[in-house]
């Protein structure tokens, strides 16, 4: 296990380092000089040069990369070109929208998907199973932003139960704030729930086919006792893996959903920063999201190896 941990941790660090290199390189290719963007087209060459020096843009590439990475390690994400505030401040005030949104969506998707998957598996091949599998096929095929638009039409325009978009902020009260997050969360959760329900069902069916289930049945346990006591516990391993991966997708998925609901989250931050050529904001936000994904994948792998000892034994 120790060997596996060390190995996996090393690859985590390598992937993280490579990701920062890729993002930095990509941002270097972006046309446009940040100093020029800040000062506008009327700026003289001297002021431009002065600002470039002040921003450290005259430094060689390697130096700037190292400065950027080492800055992030101590929590300094740089200063936004357009807002002239520390980037971490911008990220922080957007994260308190995006993170709860992703978490609510994950919770919703889990609450819907796992019971549905269990239900379908226990009715394997019968009408309820076929019906649920048909529904999940639909759930996977529906674009979440389209579903979001329909929900806005029904619940915000027709019945006026919830706001059609925007975010009042947490200071407006938890319920008011949650009310404007509920439709986006449902929209995000829908396709994830469909996938998760399918995974739950097939994992459960697979573990129901194992030898120890036959043994349990042979010693006299009923079908439902076997399902709840033995099969479900083992089926949860792949389900947890998929959930970990889905959280990453949810974070990225907020990029589009935030656009449907005009939510001031991380996704909108990236979009605005791109149009304003506020590259340092793009760079740091993307790194943060990618690092989160890498970290979650790492944790899922560790959890998986911890639950299933065969896995790390094989690799080491």
């Amino acid at each position, binding site marked *: 296990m120790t060997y596996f941990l060390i190995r996996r941790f090393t*690859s985590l660090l390598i992937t993280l380092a*490579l990701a920062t290199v890729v993002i930095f390189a990509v941002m270097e290719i972006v046309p446009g000089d940040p100093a020029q963007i800040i000062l506008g087209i009327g700026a003289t060459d001297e002021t431009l040069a002065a600002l470039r020096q002040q921003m450290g843009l005259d430094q060689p590439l390697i130096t700037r990369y190292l400065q950027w990475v080492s800055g992030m390690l101590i929590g300094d994400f740089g200063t936004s070109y357009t807002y002239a505030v520390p980037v971490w401040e911008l990220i922080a005030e957007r994260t308190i929208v995006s993170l709860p949104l992703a978490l609510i969506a994950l919770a919703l998707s889990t609450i819907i998907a796992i019971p549905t998957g269990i239900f379908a598996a226990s009715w394997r091949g019968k009408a309820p199973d076929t019906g649920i599998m048909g529904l999940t096929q639909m759930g996977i*095929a529906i674009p979440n932003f*389209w579903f979001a638009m329909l929900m806005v039409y029904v619940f915000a325009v027709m019945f006026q139960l919830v706001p059609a978009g925007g975010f009042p902020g947490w200071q407006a009260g938890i319920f008011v704030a949650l009310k404007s997050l509920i439709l986006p969360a449902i929209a995000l959760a829908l396709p994830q729930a469909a996938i998760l329900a399918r995974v739950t069902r097939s994992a459960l069916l697979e573990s129901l086919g194992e030898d120890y289930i036959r043994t349990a049945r042979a010693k006299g346990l009923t079908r439902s006792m076997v399902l709840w006591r033995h099969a479900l516990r083992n089926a949860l391993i792949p389900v947890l893996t998929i959930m970990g991966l889905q959280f990453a997708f949810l974070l990225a998925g907020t990029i589009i959903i935030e656009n449907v609901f005009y939510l001031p989250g991380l996704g909108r931050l990236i979009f605005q920063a791109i149009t304003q050529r506020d590259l340092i904001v793009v760079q740091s936000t993307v790194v943060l999201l990618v690092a989160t*994904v890498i970290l979650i994948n790492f944790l899922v792998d560790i959890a998986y190896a911890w639950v299933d000892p065969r896995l790390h034994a094989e690799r080491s």
Partner: protein
Amino acid sequence: MNIDAPHEERETWRDFIAKALRNRSFVIGMVITITIVAMALLSFVWTPYDVTKLEIVNRLKKPGTTFIFGTDHFGRDMFSMIMVGARNSIAVAFVAVGIGLVIGVPLGTLAAAKKGWLEEILMRFNDLVFAFPALLSAVMITAIFGPGAINAIIAIGIFNIPVFARISRSAAMALWPREYVMAARVAGKSATRITIEHILPNIANLLIVQATIQFSLGILAEAGLSYVGLGTQPPMPSWGRMLFEAQTMMSFAPHMALFPGIAIIITVLGLNLLGDGLRDLLDPKLRRER
């Protein structure tokens, strides 16, 4: 019946087609896919109305006998736009899958054949690309090169590379210890030749199924990118773009949002069903488990 004659195990094309026609997912998926592709092809030579002509007189017409799906805020026929949009969705997803296959499969099979540092590099590359959710990398790519269909293709295509690399590597690795591959090695065939002659034909089934799934994901991704304005640019109609334009008119012209959405759902559903059907048909092992 002659008992001594070797039993004919190989199924003929006729058997396969007969089996395929009995598979409900495959038939429904195939019919939907062919219909959508035919619609897209037809749009090159004929559409009910010209999608480039703006006729304000006909703006925001409800669905009816003249315009079966209604018209948009510029008076363009929604049905014609959906036909032309199909072209665009299919082309983007198709090329993106192509990129994934052409780059991912050689990488994956090579890693399985050579092992060692090459494999290590490939796996790290896979980890890296997987760390960038497709949407995020698409946003970054379009941030550099500007929005457009070509950049959407590149963005989706890059994400497909590790998918195909991973699946072809693991499938190829399972084949290398087999007797017929051993025999080929003993006969002195090179790793590349073995890969082309023995490995590829045997993993083709798996790749076809995965390609169908990636195709449907590509359609969804393209719609998402066009919706946020990073994919196909106007005046070329695209399903995602149509949904974006429909959003502000939701309250008085919901039909503008309804039909492009349904077009996406049907296409993705068709491809997924086709993929499921193909998996059942091509991989009998999986069939028993389902």
